[in-house]
């Protein structure tokens, strides 16, 4: 294995640990908290989310030149895909990162959510190649 590869494993791992810890302490893995956010009875996590966006917006603007251009485009799948994701999030309480946080809390049924996500990602790849074929602009590609 190349040294650069070991380095990138270490970097990704470090951020992963931080991300998991922060999501845990905010309470995103707690379905009740999430449900309370979605029915607007407790907006604490919504404020956290908005605050995080505002903070990174300011800092990224300050480093504007170094930020790579993101390949995020409006494509035919943006709206239906987001809608599916929103419904799935309300049902499972998990977005693609929160499923690991839920498992880390000891919520065993999250295993089913994870199987579902793996199946869903795999199915989309198949469906995309066969039927859609447009540019989705998925993160980091």
């Amino acid at each position, binding site marked *: 294995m190349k040294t650069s590869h070991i380095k990138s494993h270490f970097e990704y791992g470090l*951020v992963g640990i931080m*991300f998991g810890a922060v999501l845990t302490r905010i309470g995103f893995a707690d379905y009740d908290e999430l449900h309370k956010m979605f029915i607007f009875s407790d907006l604490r996590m919504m404020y956290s989310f908005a605050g995080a966006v505002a*903070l990174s917006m300011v800092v990224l603007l300050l480093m504007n030149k170094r930020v790579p251009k993101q390949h995020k485009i409006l494509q035919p799948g943006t709206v239906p895909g987001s809608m599916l994701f929103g419904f799935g999030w309300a049902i499972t309480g998990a977005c693609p990162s929160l499923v690991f946080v839920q498992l880390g809390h000891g919520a065993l049924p999250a295993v089913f959510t994870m199987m579902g996500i*793996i199946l869903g990602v795999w199915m989309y790849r198949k469906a995309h190649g066969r039927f859609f074929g447009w540019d989705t602009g998925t993160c980091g590609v």
Partner: protein
Amino acid sequence: MIEYWSWWLGALGLGGVCLAYFLLVGRLLGVSGSWAKVVGWRENRLLRQANQDFAANQDEMSDALMAETLAEFGEDALQEFQSESSISETPAKVDVNDLDSSTPWTAHLCFLLCMFIGAFATAIISGQFELRYELSPMHSRIFGDTWEVWLALLSGGMMVGFGTQMAGGCTSGHGLSGCARLIPASLLATLVFMISAVFLSMLMDVMIR
């Protein structure tokens, strides 16, 4: 009752993670992209190999094309064409790394697994850890028996996986990174998934009353 972080501490933490990801990795945070690379590592490797083979055999390919051109149009046409184009002749090489990012897929797997480790360690330290057979009392109240909960989670997970890939991003990719850069597609996507999640949650809340 577990004490969670106040909203401003959460905002600092979450924003800090986004910036740490950018500073360490050099890209903007996007978890569904990592998922795509982990689930599709085999196909991506095949694609990369095909590209490498093509890049290695490029001379062979152009020789074959040249022979075909000779057979079709004759020597004169070819010489004429070469004298015209010799000025701006640039070798076009296929850039292998351009087609697929050079980060190995195992680094993305490492990222996802470390999220679990970080959550697990933090949950133990802060006393949040508890082995549970249901997601939460509220979740079971909404979905009913054990097998119904499992079925709901499996199909919901499929919606999450399929939807995030279709939309080209999730809460982190569109919501955190995309909105922070004010990208129109991300703003729209965030609006749509928030509204649909709120809509379904309100519906579920009304139904169990």
